[in-house]
């Protein structure tokens, strides 16, 4: 037999579940990891796109801001008047310079430059001493002088400038100059963008020179362009780099905006893998344990059935399975219990039949002997009595008396045997059992030494009469009571109860005597079997009682426990025509 076949059902199921769970886990894990990685990569890509869009948006906001400032300041009364005074009325340059410095102080711009209508610098807030420098080549100034407001990014010596230029018209509509507003794209600027976007920002010029960076560690050099996704390792951290061209007034990129986001994806994926693995293992273990417990619970009745079947197989038909369940196993247990019950009944019946058969065999045997011995004994007694009459020798007469007595004793035994073997059919008549028992008890109390023995009779109420031979039933009751008296060694109690059970009359004689073991109980109704000392009984009392009850269609049972006492129950059927008759 293979190892698998030797395993219990529970172990087989648990092994199957473990195998299934493990194989499912093993096959799911790679797919799950792939899904997680793909989802996170997509998420990261979406995040990067979002960051890029955000940075673009922030740049756009700054463009819009400087352009709005340029337009707003170009209409500022003080700027216009002071520039007009300087450019048209040869006024001092300090006046327009003060006007724009005041604006730089008051508004969120870092740079303002005014030019006259020729494009020459009048005032520059970053370089106050700068003036009369032509900006005609500056495309933004050129646009402004032609009446347009433009915004863009231009390269200055100190870095990139996010700028916008607008024309300044005086009251009569004449162009008197231009105003350029700007925000320096320096470290402060990229840190502002970093704070708003969450991404580290760097700015390079068209040559790749790093001009500004929110990452101090990136100050040394700009990262070289690479194919595919660019990854930087800065200060022990991994960054994903995105490049965004910075366009000037023309289409040529004047530099690049470096957007660097810390790449936490590998660590996140690693953590996710660990977490998922842990969860899967936990679920698998939990499933196995839970399934094991469930199977154990489910198989418990099966095991009980198995044990029950084994015990029944060994002959213990009293075995029952205590299970209150409506499922298949519960029904199986019920069926099992019914089967055990039937088996028990069958065996009991079989034992009873066997016992009855055995007693019947003994009866037939003894009846034959008794029948054969009855006449010779009667002849012997007759002859002995005749002989005695003819003999005068007193000593011989005494011997003959003894012989006659013993022969008569033999005759009594033979009668008892005939009674037991139903050679003497009962002469049935209506009988009130309570009166009979009461009479027997009285007789025994008068004739026997009942020192230390208490006899209690509890007659049943409203008992019907039975058809029975009063002499024989009296003998039965006498035998049972005497038997009980003899079972009590010093003192004790004998209880006699009568009752009705279905269509039977029950007479129960219980004593608190020495009791019997199972072997004694088994043989108690056998002829000549006695637990009394030699000469104390013939061993036919209970045998005869058994035969009488059998002859009345009833039965007699005994329950006894060594040291605690015995209980004899006589069951005599009630005739239907006497039902209800007291």
């Amino acid at each position: 037999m293979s190892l698998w076949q030797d395993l219990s059902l529970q172990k087989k199921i648990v092994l199957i579940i473990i195998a299934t769970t493990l194989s499912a886990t093993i096959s799911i894990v790679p797919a799950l990891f792939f899904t997680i990685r793909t989802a996170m990569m997509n998420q990261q890509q979406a995040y990067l796109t979002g960051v890029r869009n955000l940075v673009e948006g922030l740049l756009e906001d700054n463009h819009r801001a400087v352009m709005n400032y340029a337009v707003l300041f170009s209409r500022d009364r003080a700027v216009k008047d002071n520039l007009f005074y300087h450019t048209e009325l040869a006024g001092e340059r300090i006046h327009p310079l003060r006007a724009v410095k005041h604006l730089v102080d008051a508004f969120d711009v870092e740079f303002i430059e005014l030019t006259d209508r020729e494009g020459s610098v009048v005032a520059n807030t970053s370089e106050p001493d700068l003036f009369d420098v032509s900006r005609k080549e500056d495309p933004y100034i050129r646009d402004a002088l032609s009446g347009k407001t433009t915004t863009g990014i231009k390269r200055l010596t100190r870095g990139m400038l996010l700028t916008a230029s607008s024309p300044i018209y005086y009251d009569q509509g004449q162009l008197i100059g231009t105003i350029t507003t700007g925000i320096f794209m320096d470290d402060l600027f990229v840190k502002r963008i970093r704070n708003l976007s969450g991404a580290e920002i760097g700015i390079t010029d068209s040559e790749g020179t790093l001009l500004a960076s929110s990452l101090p560690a990136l100050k040394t050099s700009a990262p070289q362009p690479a194919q595919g996704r660019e990854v930087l390792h800065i200060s022990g951290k991994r960054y994903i780099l995105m490049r965004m061209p910075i366009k000037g007034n023309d289409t040529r990129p004047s530099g690049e905006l470096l957007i660097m986001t810390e790449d936490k994806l590998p660590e996140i994926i690693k953590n996710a893998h660990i977490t998922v693995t842990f969860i899967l293992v936990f679920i698998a273990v939990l499933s196995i344990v839970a399934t094991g417990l469930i199977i154990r619970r489910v198989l418990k009745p099966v095991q009980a059935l198995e044990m029950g079947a084994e015990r029944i197989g060994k002959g213990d038909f009293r075995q029952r399975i205590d299970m209150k369940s409506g499922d298949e196993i519960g029904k199986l247990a019920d069926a099992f219990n019914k089967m055990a019950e039937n088996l028990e009944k069958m065996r009991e019946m079989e034992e009873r039949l066997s016992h009855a058969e055995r007693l019947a065999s003994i009866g037939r045997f003894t009846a034959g002997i008794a029948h054969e011995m009855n006449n010779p004994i009667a002849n012997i007694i007759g002859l002995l009595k005749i002989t005695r009459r003819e003999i005068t020798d007193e000593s011989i007469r005494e011997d003959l008396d003894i012989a006659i007595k013993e022969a008569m004793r033999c005759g009594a035994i033979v009668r008892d045997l005939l009674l037991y073997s139903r050679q003497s059919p009962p002469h049935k008549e209506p009988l009130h059992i309570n009166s009979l028992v009461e009479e027997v008890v009285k007789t025994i109390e008068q004739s026997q030494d009942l020192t230390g023995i208490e006899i209690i009779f509890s007659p049943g109420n409203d008992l019907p009469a039975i058809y029975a031979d009063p002499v024989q039933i009296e003998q039965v009751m006498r035998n049972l009571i005497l038997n009980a008296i003899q079972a009590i060694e010093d003192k004790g109690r004998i209880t006699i109860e009568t009752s009705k059970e279905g269509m039977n009359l029950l007479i129960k004689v219980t004593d608190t005597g020495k009791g019997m073991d199972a072997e004694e109980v088994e043989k108690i109704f056998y002829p000549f079997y006695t637990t009394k000392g030699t000469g104390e009984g013939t061993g036919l009392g209970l045998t005869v009682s058994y035969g009488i009850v059998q002859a009345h269609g009833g039965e007699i049972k005994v329950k006894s426990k060594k040291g605690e006492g015995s209980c004899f129950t006589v069951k005599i059927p009630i005739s239907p025509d006497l039902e209800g008759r007291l």
Partner: protein
Amino acid sequence: MRYLLIFFSILTIPFRLSPAVAEGIYYQGTHILTYSAMNKLSKAFEKKTGLRVMVRGGGCSDGIATVRNGRAEMGGLCCPLPQRLKDKGIVAHPVAMDIKVVVVNRENPLKNISLEQLRDIHTGKITNWKELGWKDAPIALIYRRHCLDMDEPVRRALGIKDDLSNLSKKTIVVRTDMELLEYVSRFKTAVGVTSKVFAVTEDVKILDLDGVRATPLNVKNHLYRLTSPLYIITKAHPGKLTKSFLRFILSPDGQAIITGSNLGAIR
């Protein structure tokens, strides 16, 4: 019943207080009057009569609007009342003469200017200080644009058309007298005309006009020519209190306050 009386007492508090409020009248209008004499006149009038004149600032247009809609009993006007307002029952009461002065930067060495020169500066005929005997520098004319829809006397005196079309192209046009004074104080080559009530500052210098100093006395004696009447406008039939206040302004006491406020007396 007692609670009912208390309730009605509370309800009538505003009505019982209203006579005290009704004792005052309001003035709103040209800031020339407001800035100079009006508060002094109000206090003097209250001291004399116990009646209050509440003074609010603003411009000529505010004065017209508040009188027309009844929010104030009196409005201040620095220009003659247009016929269209007279037709609507508004009456103008001249109360003082505004002394218009020519102001230049303190670095400007000139002390006198003629009305003709001033007119030529405004119309763009004279554009360089060299023509007036100073350095070769463009004249930065600072002009206050106001009351374009009215017959503003100074504009007329300076030969400037109502639509300013003949105003010098090199003019810095401002909205307020304060702006004008600020520019004149800052721009070395600036010149402008403003009320004397505002020009009493060390930041600018007042030039004599045709050799006459801008003083109330010279105005009274008709020696100083660049003046403009200041009016208080009322509805056709002003109330008793308003009439009383107007009489007070035109009284010697009132006119003394006027002349003491760098304005010219009307009588």
